[in-house]
């Protein structure tokens, strides 16, 4: 998949952009330009922002606790007291959706963090050192990538058992393979630059070069992969919930709500499924739109990256 990307030369554009946005005023004007040029991306960004705000301010926005069963309020339709209705155990759906943002943010960002960190380590070292180390590592990544996503996740989840952190770790580890390939490609092209050679001549150690020179140039790729990955991980978590391996209760993950009670009670109480479903769709939509726009802005040559993620 990454053939085209591997042979591309890295553009110094991203480092310039990153350097320029260091100052506040410049940042704001850059943001304004971004909104005007990429309205869809800006819209996506707003959705993402809303989600993060929801996650952070959850205890203040939600009217009840997410696992509080209100006696006598089983399966009530949306109304004045329960904005999104209640579920089969009498829990307020609005509160659960709001707290669900926390879970999705945790799982999504956590998994992305793990995936990108792993991918960066593997990809950068592999691309930088090259040689036999590169060949070995790439074979392992090859083998890793050949396993269908679901197979690996299920096996890891079966080994680790249910748990919020376990789901996050499993998703992160699995998502790292693809990303590492792309990072390796970018690293190879960056490493060919002359200033890398001069840094070596000046006596800089490998680690210093990798962290101070390569990493910033790869950062744009990481960002793009991260935004795409966020959407993918949220969807993956909901698929895992359907199979029984998602975030376990009582944590209110959107995927869990959709695939569990949402599905079971759909005929009687469709709101239990509709709102979490909408939340998932909007979050993924937002992340993807934002990621697309960022990619267009930061490095148009990364088109096609992450297009195959599902």
């Amino acid at each position, binding site marked *: *998949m990454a*053939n*085209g990307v591997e042979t591309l030369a890295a553009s110094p554009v991203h480092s310039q952009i990153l350097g320029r946005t260091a100052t506040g005023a410049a940042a704001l004007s850059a943001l304004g330009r971004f909104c005007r040029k990429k309205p*869809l991306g800006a819209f996506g960004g707003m959705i993402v922002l809303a989600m993060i705000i929801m996650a952070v301010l959850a205890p203040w926005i939600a009217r009840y606790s997410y696992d509080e069963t209100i006696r006598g309020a089983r399966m009530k339709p949306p109304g004045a007291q329960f904005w999104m209705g209640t579920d089969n155990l009498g829990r307020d759906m609005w509160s659960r959706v709001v707290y669900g943002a926390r879970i999705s943010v945790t799982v999504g960002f956590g998994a992305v963090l793990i995936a990108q960190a792993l991918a960066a380590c593997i990809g950068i070292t592999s691309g930088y050192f090259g040689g036999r180390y590169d060949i070995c590592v790439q*074979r*392992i990544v*090859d*083998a*890793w*990538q*050949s*396993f*269908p*996503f*679901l*197979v690996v996740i*299920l*096996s890891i989840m*079966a*080994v680790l*058992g249910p748990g919020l952190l376990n789901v996050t770790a499993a998703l992160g580890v699995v998502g790292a393979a693809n990303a590492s390939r792309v990072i390796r490609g970018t690293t190879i092209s960056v490493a060919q630059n002359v200033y890398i050679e001069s840094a070596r001549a000046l006596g800089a150690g490998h680690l210093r070069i990798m962290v101070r020179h390569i990493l910033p140039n790869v950062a744009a790729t990481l960002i793009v992969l991260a935004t795409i990955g966020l*959407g993918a991980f949220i*969807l993956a978590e*909901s*698929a895992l919930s*359907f*199979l029984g391996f998602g975030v376990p209760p009582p944590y209110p993950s959107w*995927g869990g709500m*959709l*695939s569990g009670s949402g*599905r079971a009670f*759909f*005929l009687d109480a469709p709101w239990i*499924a509709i709102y979490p*479903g909408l939340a*998932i*769709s*909007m979050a*993924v*939509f937002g992340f*993807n*739109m934002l990621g*697309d726009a960022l990619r267009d802005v930061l490095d*148009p*040559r990364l*088109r*096609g990256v992450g*297009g*195959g*993620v*599902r």
Partner: protein
Amino acid sequence: MRKYVLRRLLVASASLAIASLAVFSLPRLIPGDAVQLMLDERAYGKDLEDLRAKLGLDQPIYLQYFEWLGRVVRGQLGESLWTRRPVIDELARRLPVSLELGLMALCFSISIALPVGIVAAVRQDSFADYVTRSLAILGLSVPGFWIATLAVLLPAIWWGWSPPIQFTEFSVDPWAHVSQFVLPAVILGVASAAAIMRLTRAMLLDVLRQDYVRTAWAKGVSERCVVLKHSLKNALIPVVTVLGIQVAQILGGTVIFETIFGLPGMGRFLFDAINQRDYPVIQGINLLIVSVVVVMNLTVDAFYAYLDPRIRY
């Protein structure tokens, strides 16, 4: 060219070897073993030992690994721990089902995604572009199992129709056999369609910026000719790669659709095997999938090398 293929073959076998190790050890890391599960709650200590010995699970791990490897090389994948049926037979029955589902989904994907992607690229940033891109992302954003659930439940309530619950073999009724795949293939294809459409658009946009395309415009070549004859082929190369990956993902990833639509495919088979710790089955399926993927990667790479003379490494 031949040296290149040979080199890639060597590389592929190395990958396969590593993969076989992973395939063998991963299921055994899962706590709780098959014997315990088989005997459920009534297990007496000695009975567990007896059953383990009977199934050959009491030998040291590395011995089991080499024994398994030896049999694999001879083309035997062993028997299921639970049903004692040969794994190969089960795979032979279920692989076609998953393949049919996957291929139909891909066909649907491509037939929608390519034209839409081309239009979106050619009319970049127009209203049509925005609409199609949004629709594509929307298609990606809704979990597949949810669309499938709605597709199963709502027609039953509104029109009294539901997809057939019994799986029909091709030999029994070809038309019914094919039509039972249509609904799940379409839903499964929607997600891939979105991804492929975006990729096509992106790649085509890139190619359309190239100098040689600008030359073609300057020469006055018609739009259709520029797009279809000059640009498309080059743009499609990465798309083909992605397709390859999609097939691999589909092979093991159809478990959700197989569950909802009652299709006896490999996804469900693998899922059950993992839950039951049926090691030979898990190993057999994983090995098969991994081999298919490796072969596919090899083919794609060879295809590249054939298409693009620059790629000869």
